[in-house]
């Protein structure tokens, strides 16, 4: 879903660049306040893992493939602020070293694939969690569904950018229908990969999953047989 140079005109690209810079700035500040010590190296790993899995395009329809975006997954694993930064790092590496995603479109790509998927995906995840029982299975299911929806949200963000500053001649309605259609299919793949990954981490180190923080059994201290006191 990487936008190359030229798809979107300069004013819209610049505006997206400013929005991306603002979003990354907010993420840096909030991550500095909330990221737990043990999650810092995990966030580095999440970025590397997203880079790897983004290379694995899977077929979705005749002559079309999709790949993980990863923002929702990152947000569920390390929180929405650090999660957005993980994908921003991936996009920076891809744009600078791999010529994937135009440099003038870096802001557009950060808005769509980092901010919209991490924040939007996390918001959907949080809503789903409220409606579901507090179990690991619910976290995994909510992660999958939220990640799938986040891909459609990212495709909608592109359509907005195209409507504002698209250089192509296709009508916005046509692009909207085509983008949402194909990204609904890609979202299914994103949801499966995200559920698999979050489920695996929940199985091995549930304490590392930001989106499952309240599932942790609180540490109980107290005299044997005496009154126990919960330690938060």
């Amino acid at each position, binding site marked *: *879903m990487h936008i190359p140079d030229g798809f979107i005109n300069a004013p819209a690209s610049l505006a997206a660049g400013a929005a991306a810079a603002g979003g990354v700035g907010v993420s840096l500040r909030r991550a500095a306040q909330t990221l737990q010590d043990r999650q810092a190296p995990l966030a580095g790993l999440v970025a590397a893992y997203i880079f790897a899995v983004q290379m694995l395009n899977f077929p979705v329809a005749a002559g079309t493939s999709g790949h993980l975006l990863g923002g929702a997954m990152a947000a569920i694993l390390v929180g929405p602020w650090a999660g957005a930064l993980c994908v921003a790092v991936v996009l920076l590496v891809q744009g600078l*070293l791999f010529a994937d995603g135009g440099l003038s479109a870096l802001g557009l790509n950060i808005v769509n694939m980092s901010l919209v998927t991490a924040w939007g995906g996390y918001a959907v995840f949080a809503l789903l969690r409220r409606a579901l029982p507090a179990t690991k299975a619910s976290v995994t299911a909510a992660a999958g569904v939220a990640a799938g929806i986040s891909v459609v949200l990212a495709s909608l963000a592109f359509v907005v950018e195209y409507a504002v500053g698209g250089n192509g001649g296709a009508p916005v309605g046509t692009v909207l229908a085509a983008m949402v259609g194909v990204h609904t299919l890609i979202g299914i793949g994103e949801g499966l990969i995200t559920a698999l990954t979050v489920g695996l981490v929940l199985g091995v180190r549930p304490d590392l999953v930001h989106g499952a923080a309240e599932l942790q059994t609180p540490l109980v201290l107290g005299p044997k047989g005496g009154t126990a006191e919960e330690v938060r």
Partner: protein
Amino acid sequence: MRSSNLRLFLLGGLLVAIGLALLVSGFASSAPDGLDKVATDHGIAATARSHLFENGPLAGYAIKGVGNQRLSTGISGLIGVLVTFGIGLTLFALVRALRSGDRPDPGRAP
């Protein structure tokens, strides 16, 4: 024990990422992704300009001079994973340092 456990987890995760990028990436679909396909179908693709670094040594997830396409993709993926991991570790270590240097007062903390 917890911290060595965390190190083991990180190492395991990194090995998974390396394995996917190095060994599996060469078997990924080469069909255009959703946006590329829509752009091609609806005449947007013609508005694309070439990337400033299109001739870079890793451009297009390939290594210049490596003929075997799967190997070329795989090695470029390995480099990408390691570079991303390095930048990510550094960034989040800095983010954490930012907190210890500028601790928010407990009243408004997270």
